[in-house]
């Protein structure tokens, strides 16, 4: 067979066989990785949106630094700087992820994504992971800001848990974003609901305020949110103490739970939407 015929033959979906399980797994991994890369590339190029996504948390970080300085709690400035750095990851995700499907609809690509023989969950997850990865720019920007303008130095006592903590928080926030995107798939005001969660998450996940300071009934909510654990891991990785690797584990575990929940909900939502034509793909 000619090369071209080979290529075309391979291009078609192969029939069922046992080696296809491995192939399927590889395919899923490629799809997630490639989708993530493409969307990260696209989001990174949107300069003006990015500008505000980085700048907005910086306003709040600046105020927080002043408050802690004026409160003579200067020893807390390091952890606060870390917390402020991570705030940006949530900011980058909260609005962007919940309106991910709205964005695809506007681009006209949503119906192509639904018409593809790949589950929408596999298509959507890389998108929300890309939005939370944009938060990495925020982390760098905030730590630089804290260092240059406020002289706040953040040590890294244990680099591995620290790095894992950062990866963990990006992944768990991306997964939470996935759940939100799925939950708001029908709503055109999704971005507003996403925006509403910005301050509450900053507060409840212990970015700037220790969870122990929050009212008792709020704390279970904190423990159920992955970012809380990621934050702990990052802090303990930077300043030592605690059990950061365990925190990272919980962080990833919760991320997996969010994805599973999202996949479940997405299945039922799409079914009902196709029946009642409420998914308005264009």
């Amino acid at each position: 067979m000619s090369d071209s015929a080979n290529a075309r033959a391979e291009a078609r979906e192969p029939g069922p066989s046992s080696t296809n399980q491995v192939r399927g797994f590889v395919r899923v991994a490629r799809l997630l990785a490639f989708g993530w890369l493409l969307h990260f590339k696209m989001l990174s190029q949107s300069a003006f949106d990015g500008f505000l996504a980085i700048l907005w948390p910086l306003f709040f970080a600046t105020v927080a630094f002043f408050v802690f300085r004026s409160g003579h709690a200067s020893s807390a400035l390091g952890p606060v700087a870390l917390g402020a750095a991570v705030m940006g990851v949530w900011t980058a995700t909260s609005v962007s992820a919940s309106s991910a499907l709205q964005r695809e609809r506007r681009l006209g690509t949503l119906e192509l994504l639904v018409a593809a023989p790949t589950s929408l969950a596999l298509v959507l997850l890389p998108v929300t992971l890309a939005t939370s990865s944009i938060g990495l720019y925020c982390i760098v920007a905030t730590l630089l800001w804290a260092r240059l303008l406020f002289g706040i130095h953040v040590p890294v006592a244990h680099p591995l848990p620290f790095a894992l903590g950062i990866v963990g928080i990006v992944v768990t926030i991306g997964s939470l974003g996935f759940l939100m995107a799925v939950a708001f798939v029908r709503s055109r005001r999704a971005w507003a609901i996403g925006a509403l969660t910005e301050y509450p998450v900053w507060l409840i996940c212990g970015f700037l305020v220790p969870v122990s300071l929050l009212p008792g009934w709020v704390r279970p909510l904190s423990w159920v949110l992955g970012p809380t654990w990621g934050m702990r891991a990052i802090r303990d990785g930077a300043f030592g103490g605690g059990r950061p690797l365990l925190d990272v584990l919980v962080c990833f575990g919760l991320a997996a739970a969010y994805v599973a929940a999202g996949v479940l909900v997405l299945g039922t939502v799409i079914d009902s939407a196709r029946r009642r034509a409420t998914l308005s793909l264009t």
Partner: protein
Amino acid sequence: MSRHLRVFFVGGLISYRALFGFLSLWIFVPTLILTPIFQILLFAYIGRAAGARSDEFYVVGNAIQCSSVPCLFAMTQTIADERFYQTLGPILISPAGRLPVFLGRAVPVILNGAFVAAFALFAGGLILGVSFDGAAWARLVPVLCVATFSCTGLGLVNAALGLRIRETAVLSNVFVGLLLIFCGANVPLSALPAWMAEIGRGLPLTHAIEAARAVAAGGSLASVRGLLGRELLIGAIYSAAGFGLIRFLELQSRRHATLERA
């Protein structure tokens, strides 16, 4: 004179309805009601964690700072809508007299902003256990109105800049963020570096926040009249600057046909 009044009230009312008509409940409630409360809680707890100021300090400061969102966005949206619907040109050249028209557009924004601040004060305070008696409210309400009047003046400047800049939402957000830092909502001016405090004194809301705190703690309106006076002056200056800038841009656009560009 009565013609001007009619333009002022009727025009303003219609514009207000048009403004919030497009905003569904889903955006209105979260943005203007819930977000201010969350912001108050966030900073009150930051204050507690830092061992800085009392809850009341943050409640008053943030409630007033939050009113900057509706003031800036609503004013800018009004002007942007006029431009989008291509009515800005006609308004600016109509014989109705530009000043009453624009003031009419501003009053609903001012009142709405004051309501947002008042509600945030009430609800945020309720959650944190900070309350004000009736007498304190009677003194606070006028201070809130002065605050939002002043901030709406900044909104006019923002709106004018928005006629030239495409990304008006970014600009509005930047102003809100700057106010958060500089106007003493969370950090008293005395705790800021001198140059930052100077900037703060030139911005709206700063004096009103100081006045509101004094009045909430029991001070009389008379005792804060200096602060209120300065706030009104700042508001007037920003309003005049914004108004002037819009007129200037209108003149420019007649030469370059840019005003109606969507």
